[in-house]
């Protein structure tokens, strides 16, 4: 909560002012029943209509002041909380953007999104409402008690007696209902999961004729949900009748006590009438205060979740290291790395590459191919060993300098809801001619030009309106657009058919010959021509060299190549026949 308060600090003046205006407005509300008592008890006996009009006018004035001041204060409250939320959300988004991947992984994507969305809305609402009701309710409660005490201290005591009872009722109802609502949420999640499974698996379910089974499964959670909701609602259903009963009985007690007091000459009937009004005001204030408590528990939880992110320490500082003279563009020097700090994901990797050379990486899923590129981009830092770029330790190169040199297409990389052009340029300044070159090299020209708006064609979120192959071609174009000196393609052409893939490779070798490329692939054909091929297995290099060398020296590599290219002989003639 501390951090959120620091966001309020610059608005101290505005907040105090809002509270002050709120205070005035609430006082106006409190004066009205008081004037009513005065009219009935003091003015009427004087039998002067002009005085009644005058005091009545006073009431109307209070009413007008109350609405004006209240609206004014509410607007200020909305403006202040808007400003705070805007700044808070900005800082949170910036922090999440600046954190290292390792930190971001710990926060997790879905939690980052919910902190940005749900939690910042909660804070906005919380700030807004506490300024509005949070000030008003206590003022009405305390002010109401003070004014009623002035009118009649004994009747006030009767009134005050009901307050703890209502508090207790609300406390117990909340206590019993909250766990039930939590449970309801869990069952609801379960129902959503069943729906999701059914929608995604519709073909399988239909093919296996499991429709009745799935119907029963859904009916099960549906019934369960109904049951839980009924229980939770049943508890809450108690709160309203119980609190209004307490209140109304208090009111009855006031009338009865009042009767004895008036009879004994200790009070006046106008006060009892005014009391009834205060009763409503005070009880509403009570309800308001409990609502604020419920709301603030939500607000505080959200604040805590936001602060957790804002308080993340600075990660991946820039290292001071001398550049060495080196003939190598990229060098991995005994690099090991682990995501969780327990078991290595990469173990003792060493290789070197000259400017313009191509590195191919092949290996099973989970063998560490992507991890290697993550280190090359300094998305993570190695746990031991060094990654060098032109002889400089990667950790000593400013991030902007590094990112200006690289082009990368990750495995199932990200597309945003924007035009094709924006997706390729990706917030960078890319010259039109470079953009077109990149598109041509990426074999994307044909399909882009076939869309209605060509480069301005709108891509849907996650590229939902593109096929896998189209997406991959746009991603490759993105990687090539800034004419990188280091190009990384992580399984970026798996959805391309062989012909398009070959066209891509041809373009890369013709137009980007000065670029050092790192290509991760499943197909041997994609990396066969590389200057250096790494065969990875479980984070270790089990073969290193060019295709011919590996074919001779690395049995696992040869095995992969043999299966994939076994049809090669079939090319030359049909005499080999086909074994069915």
């Amino acid at each position, binding site marked *: 909560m501390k951090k959120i308060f620091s966001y309020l600090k610059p608005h101290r003046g505005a907040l105090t002012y809002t509270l002050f205006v709120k205070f005035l407005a609430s006082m106006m509300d409190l004066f009205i*029943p008081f004037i009513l008592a005065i009219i*009935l008890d003091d003015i009427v006996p004087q039998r002067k209509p002009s005085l*009644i009009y005058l*005091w009545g006018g006073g*009431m109307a004035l209070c009413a007008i002041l109350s609405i004006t001041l*209240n609206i004014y204060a*509410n607007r200020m409250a909305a403006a202040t909380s*808007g*400003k705070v939320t805007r700044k808070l*959300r*900005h800082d949170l*988004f910036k922090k*999440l*953007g*600046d954190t290292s991947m390792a930190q971001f992984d710990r926060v997790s994507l879905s939690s*980052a999104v*919910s902190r940005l969305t749900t939690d910042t809305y909660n804070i*906005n609402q919380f700030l807004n409402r506490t300024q509005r009701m949070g000030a008003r309710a206590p003022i009405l409660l305390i002010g109401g008690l003070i004014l009623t005490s002035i009118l009649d201290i004994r009747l006030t005591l009767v009134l005050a007696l009901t307050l703890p009872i209502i508090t207790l009722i609300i406390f117990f109802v909340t206590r019993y209902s909250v766990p039930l609502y939590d449970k309801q949420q869990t069952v609801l999640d379960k129902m*959503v999961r*069943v*729906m999701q499974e*059914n*929608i*995604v698996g519709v*073909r399988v*379910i*239909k*093919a296996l004729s499991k429709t009745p089974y799935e119907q029963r499964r859904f009916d099960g959670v549906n019934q369960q949900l109904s049951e839980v909701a009924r229980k939770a*609602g049943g508890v809450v259903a108690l709160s309203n009748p119980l609190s209004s009963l307490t209140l109304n009985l208090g*009111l009855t007690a006031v*009338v*009865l006590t009042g*009767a004895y007091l*008036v009879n004994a*000459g200790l009070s006046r*009937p*106008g006060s*009892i009438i005014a009391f009834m*009004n205060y009763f409503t005001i005070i009880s509403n204030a009570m309800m308001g205060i409990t609502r604020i408590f419920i709301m603030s528990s939500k607000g505080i939880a959200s604040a805590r979740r936001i602060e957790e992110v804002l308080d993340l320490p600075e990660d991946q500082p820039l290292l001071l290291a001398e550049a060495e003279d080196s003939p190598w563009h990229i060098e991995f020097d005994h690099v090991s790395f682990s995501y969780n700090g327990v078991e290595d994901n990469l173990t003792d990797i060493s290789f070197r590459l000259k400017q313009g050379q191509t590195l191919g990486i092949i290996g*099973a899923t989970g063998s560490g191919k992507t991890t290697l590129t993550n280190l090359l981009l300094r*998305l993570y830092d190695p746990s031991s060993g060094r990654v060098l770029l032109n002889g400089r330790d990667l950790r000593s190169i400013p991030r*902007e300098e590094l*990112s200006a040199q*690289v082009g990368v297409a*990750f495995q199932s990389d*990200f597309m945003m809801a924007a035009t094709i052009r924006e997706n390729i340029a990706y*917030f*960078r300044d890319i010259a039109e001619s470079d953009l077109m070159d990149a598109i041509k090299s990426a074999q994307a020209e044909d399909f882009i030009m076939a869309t209605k708006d060509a480069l301005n064609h709108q891509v*849907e979120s996650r590229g*939902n309106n593109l096929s896998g192959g189209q997406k991959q071609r746009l991603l490759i174009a993105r990687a090539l657009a800034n004419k990188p000196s280091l190009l990384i393609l992580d399984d970026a052409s798996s959805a391309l058919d*062989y*012909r*398009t893939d*070959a066209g891509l*490779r041809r373009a890369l070798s013709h137009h980007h010959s000065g670029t050092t490329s790192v290509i991760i692939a499943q197909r041997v054909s994609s990396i066969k021509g590389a200057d250096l091929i790494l065969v990875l297995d479980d984070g270790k290099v089990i073969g290193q060299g060019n295709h011919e060398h590996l074919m001779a020296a690395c049995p696992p590599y040869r095995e992969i190549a043999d*299966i*994939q290219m076994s*049809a090669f002989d079939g090319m030359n003639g049909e005499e080999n026949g*086909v074994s*069915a």
Partner: protein
Amino acid sequence: MSVIRGGRMTRNETSGDKRSLVANKMPRRQIAKRLWQYLGRNRALLLLALLLTLLSSSVALFGPKLSGLAIDAIGLGAGEAHIPTVLYYTGLMALCYGLSSLLGFLLSRVTLRMTRNIIYRMRKDVFDRLITLPVNFFDRYQAGEIISVVSYDIDTVNESLSTDFLQIVQSFVTVTVSLIMMLSIKPVLTLVFVVTVPLTALYTRWITGRTRPLFRKRSAKLGELNGYMEEMMGGKKTTRAYGREEEVLERFDQINGEAVDAYTTSEYYGTMIGPSVNFINNLSLALISVFGALLFLRGQVGLGDISSFVQYSRRFSGPINEVASILGELQSAFSAAERVFRLIDAKPEKPDAPNAFTLTDAQGDVKAEHVNFSYLSGVPVIRDFSMHAKPGQLIAIAGPTGAGKTTLVNLLMRFYDINEGSITLDGHDIYRLTRESLRANYTMVLQDSWLFYGSIFDNIAYARPEATREEVEQAARAAMIHSFITKLPEGYDTIIGDDGVNISKCQKQLITIARAMLSNARMLILDEATSNVDTQTELKIQAAMRQLMAGRTAFVIAHRLSTIRSADTILVVRDGNIVEQGRHEDLMAEKGFYASLYKAQFETY
């Protein structure tokens, strides 16, 4: 949950490809009528709720009248009070309030029961319909949208249906009874409301007219912001690799600014309602005080009358405001109901032909003759296509990504119906078979492995729940996944989908292959079944796949051409059409599209 709710607001909703569930408007009256049918199913509960509403609000309304009578009995000064009368009236007050609270509690219980019944029923109706919808429905609509109908819209409808409906009744009772009470006390004083009621009505109209577009803009802007935040968080790695954090933040600031502004502006007007309702209450109070006091001077009303009047007036103006806000809620409930009904109304798969029969244990002789098909009328996808797959043969479907290879599978399994021509299975027209039996003759493995939340055992045995442990293990062994499963702490009872269970894409696919192994069906469909499996593993399961295909008529879609070279027939698909058909050798000799595809994979630069 929040993600799904938020998803409803993102741009996806307005996207062109996936159609929105609200295409053209359903008439109001029709929606109301159908909602009424749901209410009508709970007629007894509804009547009881109505009765309780009437009773509890009228009983409560005797309170102010009784308190007024009590105050009158107190008199104006010391010694004037008639204590027994005061006791009598306050006793009645306590009784009234007690009774009203009891009735109120019963009412909440009855309403709750009714609401839950209706929600349960609606969800059931939606799901039961959903599951009979043709596959193309799910190709068209986004899962998030369908789910939000069931989880969110149905709640919205019922919240409104039960509470708002009864609230309106209650408001009506309150207003009528208050008015009668006030008229019975002093008709002249009710003239005060000639001023305040029209004021309230006019004001409410003005404010709702003012706020509605603001709130609409606010949710649109928030949706845009949500979408952007979700999107860019997902793309963090890319942004970081290119060092574009600043630019991404710049765009965020702009969207955030707009969203905050829209939010604040709508709050400006939204937060006017509270003080305004308060003002009208205060104004009525002031008017009643003045006129009440004047009448009191002339001896025309007693103090108790003024007291009752003041209390009734507070109750009188409340509901009028409430009704206005309820009308707003009803509006959103109606559009939610529309989405629900649209889903319930979606056309299910055509029923089986009246004389359809069940074909079990088909031999797997599949013949297509002169088939024409189009997804959208006027855009033919398959033209005059003929093919004959004999039992046990391997039919491969080849072609570039996105060329429409899945279309054939859709037709064979009747996920879509052909426009012309015929498809037969063992000589029977597939349109004369029950869909269930047709599909039961196939087993399949698709590119995206589908597993549900449940144990590994249940997932493998999904198609044959009666399968023994031994059979399941044998299938898993054949799919090369048995040893992995046994290494898991819970073995076959491991729940898939629980956090902490680390199952790779590849292992998931092997589980679905095991599921297919367990099936007795004589025909097999493999739709890019090994594209998520790396080469080494593929090597390992090749034997398994061969075993899976043995004795079955297999339709195999693959982009790895080496795997389909041995097929009995290769269908070459390009841009949705089947352009070539034949054995590998024939197609290579033709030097057509297939030959060029095939050669490309061996090209080096």
